[in-house]
């Protein structure tokens, strides 16, 4: 029964999956198991996205349904489980001068399904905010997002500052944006770039597994 949640979620059957969740809760199902099934459902969505069966709207709608399920589960989760804080291993944000966040939000919803601890900083962020959070959270990976071409120089400025602060060695940096290329990746000093996100997820997964993902 619980497994059906993953299938229905990945088929984007909003009403059916919500009904099933409510039914399972009434029957006393462990909310943790439901959450796990939601994660699996999002992972299936990620796979269908990678194979180009799904595009951005499907991922966004999947994330929306997941959010609705979490809302239903939240009151029970608070009573039931001691919410273990995950180490924020991925820090992600849109760089200075750019206020766009769709790309960043898609990546975040898919990485959450992979059970990575993710810290979302927001948009239009000056380098100081990133530096402060890197020092505080010590993430393994930094994801920098930008839709506009002006983001390139903000990315470079930030990565230069990270190096100046002596923080570059311990962190892998991936940049994401539709206009990015190998040349821009080298120019800003990142380890990898992604134009569409699905290969970005793969690079991050590889880094997390063996820490020698493809660079640029």
């Amino acid at each position, binding site marked *: 029964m619980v497994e059906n949640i993953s299938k229905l979620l990945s088929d984007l059957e909003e009403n059916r999956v919500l009904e099933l969740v409510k039914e399972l809760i009434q029957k006393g199902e462990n909310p943790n198991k439901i959450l796990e099934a939601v994660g699996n459902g999002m992972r299936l969505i990620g796979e269908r996205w990678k194979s180009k069966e799904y595009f*951005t709207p499907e991922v966004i709608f999947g994330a929306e349904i997941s959010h609705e399920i979490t809302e239903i589960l939240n009151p029970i989760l608070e009573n039931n489980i001691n919410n273990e804080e995950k180490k924020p291993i991925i820090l992600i944000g849109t760089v200075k*001068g750019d206020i766009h966040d*769709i790309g960043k939000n898609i990546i975040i919803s898919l990485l959450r399904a992979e059970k990575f601890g993710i810290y979302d900083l927001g948009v239009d962020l000056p380098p100081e905010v990133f530096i402060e959070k890197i020092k505080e959270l010590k993430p393994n990976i930094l994801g920098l997002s930008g839709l506009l*071409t*002006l983001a390139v120089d903000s990315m470079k400025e930030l990565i230069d500052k990270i190096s100046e602060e002596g923080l570059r060695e311990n962190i892998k940096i991936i940049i994401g944006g539709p206009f990015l290329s190998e040349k821009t990746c080298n120019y800003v000093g990142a380890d990898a770039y992604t134009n569409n996100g699905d290969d970005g997820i793969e690079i991050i997964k590889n880094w997390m597994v063996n820490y020698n993902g493809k660079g640029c």
Partner: protein
Amino acid sequence: MAKVVNPNKLFRQRVRAFGAMRDLKQPKFTPFVIPTKEWAIEFYGKHDLAAYNYNYSLIEKVLDHLYDNIPMDGLTPSYPGAKPAPFFDALGAKTYKFPGRDLDVNTASQFPQNNIYMEANEYPEFIDDPIKFFLDKSIPRKHSNLRESPRKELNLIKGAMEITRYRSIYYSILLKIAQKYGIPPIFQSSIPTGPLDFIGDFLRTLTQLFIDIKRQPEEVKAAADAIVPILVKYGESAFAKPATVPAIMVPLHVGMFLRPKDFEEFYWPSFKKMAVTLINDGFTPVFHGESDWTPYIEFLSELPKGSIWLFEKIDWDRADEELTNLAFGGTIPLDLLRFGNPEKVISEVQSQIDKYSPRGGFFLCTPMPLMSIADAKPENVMALAKYLFEKNFM
């Protein structure tokens, strides 16, 4: 450079070249135009970006410096480097984030994607009468100074005066530049965006639109249909009568988020209706297709002749071969202008001319407007423009 050739003659030659390019015939030369937006302001380099949003006449020196150093074949009024911030301020508009007000003084103004101006349950009301919906609902939501209050009328008049002032200054500067350098304004008018894009950009946000497509598909389609005549009228109203190349710029960015079967169902019908109406009415829509349009080439091949496309990304060889019904540009990559050197830029662009100019409907352009000076090294753009000018006119 431009000064040694008679500007009137240049103007006529350039208009003819654009007309021929649009008609998919062989122009005498391949037209070259790059929308330079904020790049031109930084290239001039005298003031913060923010200053231009308030002091409209400053842009004259920017454009004079630009076209004196970089002769191009068309002005691009619908890609201004500055926006009239006092107009938006008078109306209390939340529609843009401006340098100096919401962003750093040197960051280009941006359009936030997260303000909802129509609720999901309001589609029927919008579909029934879009104009009424704008007046009663979305405009007051967007503009705090246009909500019911004793000052509402006054704010509206203030806004109207400000936009009139901006337009009269901006267009008189453009006219002067056009006459001095013999550069015709192309991409004169604009439509804010395509029909389904409009629902996302101006009413629901993109994220909500994508969710609406899943939850209330029929209403989304009907809303996109309902906005078509209004967008058409908006674009066409800028012209007293159709000019030689009455180009109407329309940026598009929602379609390529959709998988082809959803593109066909949700994006294409209302978009095609708008494109066909503009063409049949004697206008030249210039569609700026953001992101990758390769998956939609088959749809584009259905359009009647008469549109110009600026593609941000597409399989250029397929476009050349399969899109014999439209003119396109966008082949000069920003990486080339950013990281290349003059020799490399000139040789790559010349090879693009050799490859695509035989089709007729081809113009030289970057895939997107230049937003910051780092997008393209000035020496590269200057060298390219000089090369093309000498080749075409000397």
